[in-house]
């Protein structure tokens, strides 16, 4: 198995771990963390392809990863703000209890 395949497999495994966490945990914050893990797996993919791809001098993989890290941080901030606002309203972060749109 070539190094690139190893990195891609690791990235796929991280993505599915993040996906499993995002789909099964009850706490809203941990679902957000699962989403962050999925973004991280995609970043690993980008860097692996930058390193083993045809044109590393174009720096596309690194640039995309930098922008992805930035956006993920901003999204985490806004997501946690939403979770805090919902907590103030319903006093709970349990996603199973927030199954109705009625306030």
């Amino acid at each position, binding site marked *: 198995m070539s190094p690139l395949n190893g990195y891609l497999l690791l990235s796929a495994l*991280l993505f599915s771990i*993040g996906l499993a966490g995002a789909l099964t945990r009850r706490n809203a914050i941990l679902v*957000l963390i699962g989403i962050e893990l999925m973004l991280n797996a995609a970043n690993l993919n980008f860097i692996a392809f930058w390193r083993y791809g045809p044109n590393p001098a174009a720096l596309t993989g690194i640039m995309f990863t930098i922008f992805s890290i930035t956006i993920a941080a901003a999204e985490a901030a806004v997501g*946690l703000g939403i979770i805090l606002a919902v907590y103030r309203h319903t006093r709970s972060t349990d996603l199973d209890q927030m199954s109705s749109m009625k306030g």
Partner: protein
Amino acid sequence: MNLIFFILATLTIVGTAAAMSLRSAIHCILALTIGLVGLAALYLLLGAQFVGFTQILVYVGAVAILAVFAIMMTQGASAPTQPILSSSWLTGVSVAVAVFAVLAWAIHASASTQTAQPQPEVSVNQIGAALMHRFGLPLEIMGLLLTAALIGAVILAMPEKKETL
């Protein structure tokens, strides 16, 4: 190279798997930190120094701290007593396993067309030059997006003004 890759990969997988399956939310975040540091080490192994250090600075230094603050504010320091998995967890796990199976099959079945390449040397000057010239527009849009996220997060998290009678 292979041994280091396996050690770091194991560290990352153990950290992230623990992050998604531990009982206490704070323990999950701390395990996630281990996984993220493992990922940063993998970036360093791949030769992307700037991205590796930025990953530690942003994710470990900011996102993890933000997550622990949010957990503190929403449930305090008490240990959780209710079940941690949602009621439809079996569907979630099977979807994740299916996704992994499809991805792994795709990786395995694709032709590997690589030649052995030397480690590309990238300096921060090149990244800076690329950010200013070729990726100037995305940089500005990122600035706008971060400003919007900052203002939005502050407004969302502000306590509501109590109506005075």
